[in-house]
């Protein structure tokens, strides 16, 4: 009864094809969210109530309220269909025939010297990655903003200011470092949101990763494929959260002491 995603393909083979694609997409999306969310959250907290703060808060609230697949549709419609700046679907354009080494399209192009393949892969990554990065961005922004606000009120920051430390030193050594802990915690949780988002946007962009395969498997109620894919997603999710827990020790010496 169940036909599978590609009939006749072993689930393990499908996994090895699609897993690198999803990792690539998720890494780019998380990096985008962090690059935008952490500095903006910091600046918004320092100039609380200012225009940038209000704009950031509004966009982060919207980021949570907009269904991610609708956002994916909007991005695709605007930048691919209307403006034609970026490819609408897939991982690779027709005519680009990249050699497969690692399975990561962007890295393979560099390794084999086929730079046009790398550029092409990056172009295909932009829209799915931006769509996926929205929710993590909104969450990272809000959490970092709240954490910085919290830390700015701490006695040790006032002490550091009182003893005349450079603003730069206080910023990097006292404020940002202490505000990092809740942000790092949320990264682990956001990976879950990313995996779910990949299921929802995978079909929109026909990005052949785990998400796309999961969406088909759900629709077909293909339980054996579902088990493999969900297990894979879960291993990634739990693994990232383990790494996050371990990284506390790097950031906070108080954790290391125990």
């Amino acid at each position, binding site marked *: 009864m169940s036909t599978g995603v590609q009939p006749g393909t072993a689930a393990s083979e499908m996994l090895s094809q699609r897993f690198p694609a999803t990792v690539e997409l998720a890494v780019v999306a998380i990096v985008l969210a962090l690059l935008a969310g952490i500095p903006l959250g910091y600046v918004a907290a320092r100039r*609380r*109530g*200012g225009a940038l*703060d*209000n704009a950031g*808060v*509004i966009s982060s*609230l*919207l980021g*949570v*309220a*907009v*269904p*991610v*697949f*609708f956002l994916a*549709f909007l991005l695709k*419609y605007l930048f691919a*269909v209307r403006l034609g700046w970026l490819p609408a679907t897939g991982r690779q354009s027709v005519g680009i025939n990249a050699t497969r080494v690692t399975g990561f399209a962007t890295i393979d192009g560099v390794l084999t010297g086929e730079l046009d393949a790398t550029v092409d892969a990056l172009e295909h990554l932009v829209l799915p990655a931006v769509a996926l990065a929205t929710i993590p961005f909104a969450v990272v922004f809000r959490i970092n903003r709240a954490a910085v606000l919290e830390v700015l*009120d701490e006695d040790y920051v006032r002490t550091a200011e009182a003893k005349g430390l450079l603003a730069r030193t206080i910023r990097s050594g006292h404020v940002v470092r202490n505000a990092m802990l809740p942000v790092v915690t949320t990264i682990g949780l956001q*990976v*879950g*949101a990313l*995996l*779910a988002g990949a*299921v*929802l946007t995978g079909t*929109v962009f026909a990005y052949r990763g785990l998400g796309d395969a*999961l*969406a088909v498997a*759900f*629709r077909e*109620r293909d*339980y054996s494929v*579902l088990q493999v894919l*969900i297990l894979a*997603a*879960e291993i990634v*999710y*739990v693994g990232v959260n383990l790494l996050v827990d371990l990284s506390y020790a790097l950031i906070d010496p108080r954790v290391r002491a125990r």
Partner: protein
Amino acid sequence: MTAATNHTDARPGTEKRPRPRRDLFGRKKRLDDLADSGVSLTADAWRRLRRNPVFPLGAGIVTLFVLVAIFADALAPQNPSVTMLADQVVRARNEISPAQPGHPLGGDQFGYDLASRLLVGSRQTLLVGVLATLIGLTGGVTLGTLAGAIGGAVDTVVMRLVDVLLSIPSLLLAVSITALFAKGSLYTVIVAVAVVQIPVIVQSTLVLATSIIDAAALSFLGVGNPDRSRPEWGQMLGEAQNFIDSHPSLAFYRAICIIVVALGFTLVGESLREALDPRNRR
């Protein structure tokens, strides 16, 4: 001459006092209002809630949404479960009728009046949100209380179960639960959306917003509620995906409804959290 008198700000009467800046949630910098102590938590929270410029907006959206859901039948310009007869022919060619007198937003992909479907759909949307939140809340609070109060083996079992729920990204879990049922219905959607909220019961209004969006996601993936006699926004938006290139307006109107309502619940939830957080009391 001391350093202070050199400083222009230090002249009497012209001291540069930090302007109490408020952010969107009406929070002031904490040290500015140390004077307000000696008020009960509730009174204090209520006072901060009323000062919060975001709260009326969110509360307004939520109130309007609930009113629309109650009076949907009276507001709907057409009967939402009767197809537009004049358009039967058009519908046969898989076209979507444009806006016309009596049908302010035109028809949908089945030939129903879109505006009426949207108005009536608010009911199921509210039902999904409220029921999923209530079930999640009851489950979460009961399990948490049991684990805390009895302790020992019960605590261990409950906490490990919650760990299992938390180890799967919530939407994947919700979709898996609905996929277990041979046929989707409004209630499988509610149960699935509720179960994944159990571990994260922190703020019920925020859960309401996520429930509505999660329900939309389930329909989008084709495991939602297939019953068209009781339309629901998430289901409607999910079904609009096939017409996104030819008729983006179908998805657009439905998405706007979901976004505005989810935003309303989020705003109310956020301002309640701000107001009730004891750390903001000063």
